[in-house]
């Protein structure tokens, strides 16, 4: 499996408090990696560390196979585009001029500017200064600036923050196109989980500076599927009872006393069938989570 970015026990300490606590994350090539956490959980700090904007207190990270302390790390960074906290936009310049500055800094050809502006939907802005852009337009201009060097990895910190619904959709569509058409890997942080769930192919959940869990979208989908979690006296005969008596095919035996049944289950029938099979039903719990529910369960829910 090819990773474009991995961190190994990455740590950042501010005044004796760990803002990032031994984070080990893995971003695969082609993924849209949703970085999920509450405000102040450490998402931005992790991104700032990866982007070289802040110095680490411990651990390391590897970008395109180069460790952060290796000589070639600057060359690896050339393959990264990022928007951290706010898009890099000079308000007194037009969209084209902003990209010209970015091209100059990168030593990139200015020939791609028109195509880039068209790609992000800003080709018609003409002489309009960036200070007069809407938040969504600024965000798209920021993304265009991040795309100037034709990056392989795009790091976006809360790119939909403050956007209206139309702006959110525009940014989402743009990111999906970039991922599908140009094969750009995206690391995106957000606390608008519903929005993230429409994009991400992998997730990392961070809480109080520590990475609580990494999970693929498919695994998350499984975990969030509507199911009934049962606790019983024994699970040995359960498959037989499920299949023969109840006609259930989708279930998972979790332990000697626990099992998950997917789909709609009639609890009365289930209880009768188990009783008839000599199994005592001790506890029934319905599960119907979305990403938000999963996250709250994962981090404990308390503030």
């Amino acid at each position: 499996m090819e990773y474009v970015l991995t961190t190994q026990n990455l740590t950042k300490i501010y005044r004796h408090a760990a803002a990032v606590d031994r984070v080990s994350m893995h971003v695969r090539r082609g993924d849209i990696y949703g970085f999920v956490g509450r405000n102040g959980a450490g998402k931005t700090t992790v991104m700032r560390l990866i982007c070289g904007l802040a110095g680490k207190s411990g651990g390391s990270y590897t970008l395109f196979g180069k460790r952060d302390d290796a000589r070639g790390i600057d060359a690896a960074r050339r393959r990264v585009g990022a928007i951290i906290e706010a898009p890099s936009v000079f308000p007194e310049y037009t969209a084209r001029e902003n990209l010209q500055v970015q091209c100059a800094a990168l030593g990139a050809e200015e020939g791609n500017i028109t195509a880039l502006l068209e790609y992000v939907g800003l080709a018609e802005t003409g002489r309009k200064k960036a200070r007069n852009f809407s938040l969504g337009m600024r965000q798209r201009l920021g993304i265009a600036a991040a795309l100037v060097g034709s990056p392989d990895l795009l790091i976006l910190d809360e790119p939909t923050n403050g956007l209206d619904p139309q702006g959110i959709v525009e940014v989402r569509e743009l990111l999906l196109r970039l991922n599908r058409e140009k094969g750009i890997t995206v690391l995106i942080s957000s606390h608008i989980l519903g929005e993230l769930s429409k994009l991400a192919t992998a997730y990392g959940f961070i809480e109080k500076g520590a990475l609580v869990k990494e999970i693929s979208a498919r695994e998350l989908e499984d975990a969030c599927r509507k199911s009934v979690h049962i606790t019983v006296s024994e699970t040995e005969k359960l498959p037989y009872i499920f299949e023969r008596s109840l006609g259930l095919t989708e279930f998972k035996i979790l332990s000697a006393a626990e099992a998950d049944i997917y789909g709609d289950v009639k609890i009365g029938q289930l209880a009768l069938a188990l009783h008839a099979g000599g199994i005592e039903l001790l506890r029934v719990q319905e599960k119907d989570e979305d990403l938000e529910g999963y996250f709250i369960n994962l981090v404990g829910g308390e503030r």
Partner: protein
Amino acid sequence: MKALLRADLYRLFRSKFFYILLIVSFALALITFLLYLAISEISEGEDGLMPFVMTAEQLQMLSFDGTIGYMAAIAAAIFVCGDYSGGGMRNKVVIGCGRRKIFYSKLIAVSFASVCIYIAIQIVVFVLGGGAFGWEGASAYHVISRFIAGLFMSLACAAIFTSVALLVQKLSSSLIFGIVVIFAVTMIVSLLSVAASMLDSAAFDWIYKIFARLTPMGQNSLLMAGEDDYWVLTAISAAWVLLAVFAVPVWFKKRDIK
């Protein structure tokens, strides 16, 4: 580095503040010139007044009135901190431009701006002052050496205030720090100078000269007073630039970028 410099110069030439600073510096030098021209004309026409003889060399000495220090501080704060607030600095670090190169590029751009401002002031001295007052009694060696000392003083100011802006990162803090430092140094130099002459104390004179020589803002007062150890002043200014070139990247590397 070349690409970074291109981007910084692109921003500098498109910045209206650069042109405003140039115009203000030129205007201040012009006002000084016109003032002395008027005094000279009046003293010539009026009987009973002591004749006021002004030369272009005196105007050159008077041009070291501290303007360049303030202008360099303002230019560095606006140019460097503007890049921070626009997110350009973050972008450059993220895309692997290298912090050392980023600093050098900023240093060259601000130095260029400071030299332009210095030249705008010196144009008034050489073109208008030379034309109106003449260079009678002036030594070419002194005039040229003084010009070079002033040039290096401008570069030293640019190096100091670019470093401050780069490390402070915030426009208001950088501006306040720069202006307060210039004001404080000028004040201390003036007090030491007054103390040295009023008390006729060799110790105060010694402290004054050391302090004034060591700081580009203090060097102004020496050049204005007609001090002629230009090469010592030039060397000290060059040392400030070298200090910035070698020390600031080490410090900058450890700083978190806003």
